[in-house]
């Protein structure tokens, strides 16, 4: 899945914890972290890639290293039902105008909920080892399962 369609340059630009280690005199008062740079009035009406996320927003950090298995998305089977988008606990399913675009691999933790709730046959999302190549995973995608006759 190409990354360009999913995010601005700021998404996942750093490892979590790779921030500049400033001293006690420079840290924010009360550990208050601002989510966006500048005026964020009506920010909810902007798409994620159009927002100016602050450096301390987790949007700009990647936690990809936490994942050992990953979901792979198969566009050819997906019916854009949005189930995975609704259920993903980390907003890592990227969808625009009710069309599924793919996985945000910078924030996906590999929990597998999206695969579990996918209603298609075969599933449009399947879990693979993190080290497996996505194209190879797609090439070996399983066939439709036939219902067992009574």
């Amino acid at each position, binding site marked *: 899945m190409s990354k360009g369609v999913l995010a601005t340059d700021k998404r996942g630009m750093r490892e979590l914890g790779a921030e500049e280690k400033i001293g*006690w005199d420079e*840290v924010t008062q009360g550990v208050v972290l601002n989510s966006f740079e500048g*005026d964020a009035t009506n920010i909810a009406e902007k798409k994620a890639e159009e927002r100016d996320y602050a450096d301390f927003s987790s949007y700009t950090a990647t936690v990809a290293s936490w994942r050992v298995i990953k979901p792979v998305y198969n566009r050819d089977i997906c019916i854009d039902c949005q189930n995975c988008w609704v259920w993903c606990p980390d907003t890592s399913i990227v969808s625009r105008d009710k069309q599924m675009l793919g996985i945000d691999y910078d924030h996906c933790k590999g929990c597998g909920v999206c695969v579990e709730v996918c209603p298609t046959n075969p599933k449009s999302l399947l879990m693979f080892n993190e080290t497996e190549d996505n194209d190879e995973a797609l090439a070996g995608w399983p066939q439709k399962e036939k219902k067992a006759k009574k």
Partner: protein
Amino acid sequence: MAKEFELNEVEVWDGNYATSQALRQAQIDVVAAYPITPSTPIVEGYGAYVANGYVDGEFVMVESEHGAMSGCVGAAAAGGRVATATSSQGFALMAEVLYQASGMRLPIVLTVVNRALASPLNVRGDHSDMYMGRDSGWIQIDAFDAQEAYDLPLCAFRIGEHLDVRLPVMVHQDGFTTSHKAQNVTPLQDKIAYGFVGDYVPVDDMLDFSRPVTHGAQTEEDWHYEHKAKQHKALMDSTKVIDEVFAEFKELTGREYKRVETYMMEDAEVALVLLGSSVETAKLAAKQLREEEGIKVGIVSPRCFRPFPYDLMAEALDIPTLKAVSCLDKSAPGGAMGALFNEVSAAAYNTESRPMITNFIYGLGGRDFAVDEAKRIMREQKAHADAGHITTNIQQFSGLRGPKLGFFETRRS
């Protein structure tokens, strides 16, 4: 718009009522509370002001004290002026959230009516709850009588909300001896009181939709330490603002408050250090003992329990004539010296006078502390001074039935 409350120049109020009036005059946005003896009348009184149109803010009934302080944290993070009241077990249940409030730098005002902690269950006044809060990162100010229970909450909003401070503040008073004792109180008229407290200036408020913020972020070993150090610095530096607010309050009312209050210390040979409603008892005993027996006794009382006023405490005790000091702690020490003994010893150790210092535990669970007992302790300090060394155990118990109980001795002169 809140109705104005008609007040006489002098009112007869108990400590609880005085505090509830001060909270009303501060026009708080949210009070989330769960009443508990002996602080119940603060919340009760405040609820009545809300119901009768004297307050514009919200009063939130919650399911516990943990919920009360959680509600306060939420409302303060949202950007409101916030306060509540509690005592004893309720304070203990709040404990987890107290640390959240100070770490999140939310200037909540908590009025604490001091009461013993169970077990055994006890509703009377001692300082167990106040002492329990001493590492929680709050500013702790102690009111010794009803007038102070009115004055100090007004100061507390000013101190905690100051942009250089932004820390929560507890205002303590003694259960029953202060909270339920009616005394003459000279209040400020509503407009003057609110003029002193001033409008609340929110910082990083969650209701500012132009600048969404995360409150209560998690930090591990790479960030936590820096944040706690910054918080401690703000607490230590708050002394400057406390002094300024007290000075401004004196200008307005003529009533003077200091982080360390002293009484007849100028030429004192012996001194008691204590706080709360016992200060008045000790002052009376000191005055009488000076007149009756010529013993030069002085009284030192930390008005500010946190940040502990090491500077002014050292100054108060650095008197050439001073030989023996006893620190009186109204809280079960739990395997240590009383907290006042420890703090005062630390403050006095590097002074020139470096007096002998002993510790009395007293008044637990509301055990009475009367003038005669205060005098007995003062005479004992005089005996140390005359002998040139501490003639008793360093830690003793005042007003306790049964065989004499004491710990540790020294022959240091």
